[in-house]
């Protein structure tokens, strides 16, 4: 596939790995923000191929993992309603709520459907005028433009049996939280390439200034990830802290202004509770007053949600990179993809699931 295969070339990967090895003279802890990058790293075995001194800390860039428990419970309550067709990306289907998940709701007769795009949910709404169609709009900044445009189009076409349950989260506040933490260990960041495609690099410039930490906008193919790592390591070895763009084929410094504009039109900033981490102020987007009619949270009154997290689950520490998944005592025992205690064990991007799936050999029996 053009623009994919070339960025997985084994010989070029070796070049990049050799260069990283040659430049590394001391231990460094890097964080890749995006769950998609975590997936690439673990799936290709990149962390094992890096010199031992380089530690990759897997960041909270898995929107599935950080969607607040309360939002999941709300989604489940809505999906269970007989008048609702609940549409979602595949990633969310098995995420555990306090006592249930979408998969099980489906098994009990709930109309839960996996779609590829929010536009598919609108189509379903058009085809089922006597039902309420709700789309579960989770994601980082990358996904927000899609959800924003979908709401705009629904509004334009007067499709009023459609609504969005929104839980967007933002990367820069998460980076701030990680860097402000007294126990932080991260010395350099691989910024999420497609988030930068949308939002540009300006916010990251500010973070580099404030925290004096290298940030490199990085793509998702194996060579992209290796290059991001290579550039961060070079900066660290040279004692510099700069913003760099290692994904120029898809990232421009200004981002996508049209997308930013539409997102501003439809969403507004809000505080968000990140599952496993806690409340991060001004770290999310919700539908603004002009689009409140399409807000599923307002359309469906859901009462009496008491969120209950497993006391054993340490996903917050995993998401902040404070522990590795296999350092959690429940990992592989009480917590497995089959019986997950927290979201990172379910999501394909979750660090715990990635470790379980791809690092089984290291799991203590």
């Amino acid at each position: 596939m053009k623009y994919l295969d070339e960025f997985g070339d084994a010989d070029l990967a070796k070049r990049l790995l050799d260069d990283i090895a040659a430049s590394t003279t001391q231990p460094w802890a890097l964080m890749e923000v995006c769950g998609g990058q975590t997936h690439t790293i673990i799936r290709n075995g990149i962390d094992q191929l890096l010199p031992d001194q380089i530690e990759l800390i897997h960041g909270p860039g898995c929107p599935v993992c950080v969607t607040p428990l309360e939002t999941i419970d709300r989604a489940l309550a809505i999906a269970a309603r007989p008048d609702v067709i609940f549409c979602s990306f595949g990633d969310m289907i098995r995420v555990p709520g306090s006592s249930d998940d979408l998969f099980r709701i489906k098994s009990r007769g709930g109309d839960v459907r996996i779609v590829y795009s929010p536009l598919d949910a609108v189509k379903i709404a058009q085809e089922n005028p006597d039902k309420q169609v709700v789309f579960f709009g989770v994601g980082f900044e990358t996904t927000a433009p899609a959800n924003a445009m979908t709401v705009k189009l629904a509004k334009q076409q007067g499709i009023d049996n459609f609504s969005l349950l929104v839980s967007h989260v933002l990367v820069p506040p998460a980076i701030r939280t990680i860097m402000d933490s007294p126990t932080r260990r991260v010395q350099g960041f691989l910024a999420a390439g497609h988030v930068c495609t949308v939002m540009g690099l300006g916010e990251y410039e500010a973070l580099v200034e404030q925290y004096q930490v290298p940030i490199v906008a990085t793509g998702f193919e194996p060579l992209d990830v290796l290059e991001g790592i290579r550039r961060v390591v070079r900066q660290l070895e040279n004692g510099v802290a700069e913003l760099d763009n290692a994904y120029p084929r898809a990232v421009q410094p200004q981002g996508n202004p049209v997308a930013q504009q539409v997102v501003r039109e439809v969403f507004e900033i809000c505080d968000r509770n990140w599952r496993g981490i806690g409340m991060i102020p001004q770290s999310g987007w919700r539908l603004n007053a002009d689009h409140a009619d399409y807000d599923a949270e307002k359309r469906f009154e859901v009462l009496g949600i008491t969120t209950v997290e497993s006391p054993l689950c340490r996903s917050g520490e995993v998401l902040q990179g404070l522990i590795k998944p296999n350092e959690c005592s429940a990992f592989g025992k009480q917590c497995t993809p089959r019986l997950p205690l927290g979201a990172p064990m379910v999501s394909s991007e979750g660090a715990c699931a990635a470790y379980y799936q791809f690092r089984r050999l290291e799991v203590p029996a």
Partner: protein
Amino acid sequence: MCLGVPGKVEQVWEAEGTRMATVDFGGVRKEVCLAYVPDVQVGDYTIVHVGFALTKLDEASALETLDLFRSVGLLDEELGITVDPR
């Protein structure tokens, strides 16, 4: 979080005032909304995430990046510096 896949724009049309396209992902075709990439035309490559094109893929830039990868370590090789095997 960002499964964005590159594809080639095959056909463009307008539906209800919005630019839509058929994008070819190496033999698989999907309908994609081009609202966010007004400059993308038939024949261009674009990165698509959940049914929306987010940016035009810069071919020159992609080739430059690959060249960069090919040149990594080359200077060292030319100077006869061997990479420390780990």
